[in-house]
């Protein structure tokens, strides 16, 4: 076991990546799903071991193929990556386990092996981004996960997914290419691709213009991938028309992985070295974050399509994550990372509940969901619980990160008060859009569009929906795990500041 323990970082990528081509061969009914779910669960187990490892202080550095950094490709897992790895693998596992029935509806039997293969490639790509410490390697994994996610988003029956995916593909590729230009420029000036090595060498050339340009390209490119306002336009439709299980998976973690790269790159490589970068970073991201919160929430208030409403809420929530980071303080970063975790819990649970509703309601329009709670009280209740967490009601996970965020903003004095006002306004708008959902489910009359014979979601799906909903309450009261990971990560990210 000792030997295997050392290989955990690479196994995190290798397991789903090797399973992907095998899954294609599994033609018999349901087998592809079973294999994908099993390997996703195995990834989750590996991620849990990694989390336990980093919490006990293990340093996971892995020289791929035995080639030492900076010449070889280095894999590295620290608290930050372990936190996001946990999110990604958990989201994938629960989406696969709960999504069986929903995916059977959306994807024809003979295409399922291909679909699940692509799903595993997304997982492998996301995991690869998180374990890699090499800038170019991150690009490659980013493209693996993106290309595969275009496939799974377009995998359903809704034809409107196709133009949505096309837009996603164009914007995603532009983002990745920007990132590629950025690391090309950095490589040109420093001759290294290893992040840690880059940090040391970039210092000497920090005053040169290509480095500044590189910082711009990398930040904008990753912001595109992370759907930072106003580069978010690909996100709402892609989430809305994707198969519901895919929405669960991607909404919970995909943009967060890009944010992870953004934070890691900016804090580890640029922050210490570029004169005034701290200010530029904050000045660039903070207004965008504020706008994201306000505009995203405002659009969500007026949206009728349930999934698109939640997608716009995601745009706003990405704003909270960025807002915390743009404070460039321990408190702010901790809040930001905690919110990554807590928002994934809330949004994951919400989309799971949406998947449950979609089993019975073909149209996820708020005006057509009347009577849903009467026939599916458990699903509707889970959605309400997750919604409360998204608002940030005390006793739920969402409250914890809001608390940290407000606390960190208050540290900034008078401008901080303005930020608090923005956070509060965002939360109040969340009350409005969540309550529109609650009212639509619980109080609206049934319409002629209400399908006949609506009953509760399948038991297995319901159990997992509630598992996710209860996780929101559990992590709202017992906060030690995410808090410790977030605090340590924030400290290590900020440790790179002078």
């Amino acid at each position: 076991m000792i030997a295997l323990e050392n290989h955990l970082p690479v196994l995190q990528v290798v397991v789903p990546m090797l399973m992907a081509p095998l899954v294609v061969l599994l033609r018999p009914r349901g087998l592809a799903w079973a294999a994908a779910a099993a390997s996703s669960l195995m990834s989750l187990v590996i991620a849990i071991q990694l989390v336990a490892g980093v919490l006990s202080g293990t340093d996971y550095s892995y020289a791929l193929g035995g080639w030492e950094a900076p010449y070889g490709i280095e894999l590295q897992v620290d608290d930050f990556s372990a936190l996001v790895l946990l999110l990604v693998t958990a989201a994938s596992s629960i989406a696969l386990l709960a999504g069986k029935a929903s995916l059977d509806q959306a994807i024809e039997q003979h295409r399922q092996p291909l679909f699940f293969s692509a799903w595993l490639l997304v997982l492998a790509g996301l995991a690869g981004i998180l374990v890699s410490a090499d800038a170019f390697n991150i690009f490659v994994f980013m493209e693996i996960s993106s290309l595969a996610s275009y496939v799974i988003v377009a995998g359903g029956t809704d034809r409107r997914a196709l133009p949505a995916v096309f837009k996603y593909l164009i914007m995603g590729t532009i983002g990745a290419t920007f990132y590629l230009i950025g690391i090309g420029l950095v490589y040109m000036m420093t001759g290294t691709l290893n992040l840690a090595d880059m940090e040391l060498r970039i210092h000497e050339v920090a005053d040169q213009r290509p480095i500044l340009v590189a910082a711009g390209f990398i930040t904008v490119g990753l912001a595109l991938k992370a759907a930072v306002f106003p580069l978010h336009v690909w996100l709402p439709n892609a989430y809305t028309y994707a198969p519901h299980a895919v929405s669960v998976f991607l909404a919970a973690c995909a943009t967060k992985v890009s944010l992870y790269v953004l934070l890691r790159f900016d804090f580890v490589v640029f922050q210490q070295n570029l004169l005034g970068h701290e200010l530029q970073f904050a000045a660039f991201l903070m207004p965008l974050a504020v706008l994201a919160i306000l505009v995203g929430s405002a659009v969500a208030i007026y949206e009728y399509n349930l999934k698109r409403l939640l997608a716009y809420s995601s745009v706003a929530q990405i704003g909270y994550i960025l807002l915390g980071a743009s404070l460039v303080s321990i408190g702010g970063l901790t809040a930001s990372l905690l919110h990554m975790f807590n928002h994934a819990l809330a949004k994951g649970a919400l989309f799971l509940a949406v998947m449950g509703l979609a089993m019975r309601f073909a149209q996820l329009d708020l005006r057509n969901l009347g009577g849903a709670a009467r026939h599916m009280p458990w699903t509707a209740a889970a959605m309400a619980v997750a919604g409360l967490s998204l608002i940030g009601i005390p006793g739920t996970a969402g409250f914890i990160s809001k608390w940290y965020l407000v606390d960190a903003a208050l540290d900034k004095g008078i401008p901080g008060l303005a930020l608090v006002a923005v956070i509060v306004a965002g939360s109040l708008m969340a009350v409005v859009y969540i309550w529109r959902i609650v009212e639509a489910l619980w109080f609206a009359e049934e319409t002629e569009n209400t399908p006949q014979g609506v009953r509760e979601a399948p038991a297995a799906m319901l159990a997992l929906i509630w598992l996710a909903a209860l996780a929101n309450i559990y992590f709202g009261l017992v906060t030690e795990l995410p808090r410790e990971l977030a605090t340590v990560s924030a400290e290590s990210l900020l440790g790179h500041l002078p």
Partner: protein
Amino acid sequence: MEFLGIYHYWVFAVLLMIGFYAVVAKVNLVKKLIGLSVFQSAVFLLYITMSKVSGGTAPIFQKGEVDQIFSNPLPQVLILTAIVVGISTTALGLGIVVRIKEEYGTIEEHEIQEIDRR
């Protein structure tokens, strides 16, 4: 003539903008993809350009030669990977365009929007 001395970077920049323009301005989805390819190719050129060392040759040891100057092989290797990524993207994009044509009967962006709005 500093301007001419870095002309290959100008080529990179101009190609990049041509590609970007096509992606943004064209309504035909295939033309958008062509623009995207041009956009990516520009970046390939950037990498190749930066790896060039004056007087350098291909990085292959030759018997008897000493003090050889090689071009940096690493960016070339990187860009091989990036080319593969680019091809995959284009292929997937074209695949999606074919599906859109099947479903909507058109590959003009505004016409698709028109159909969806109905």
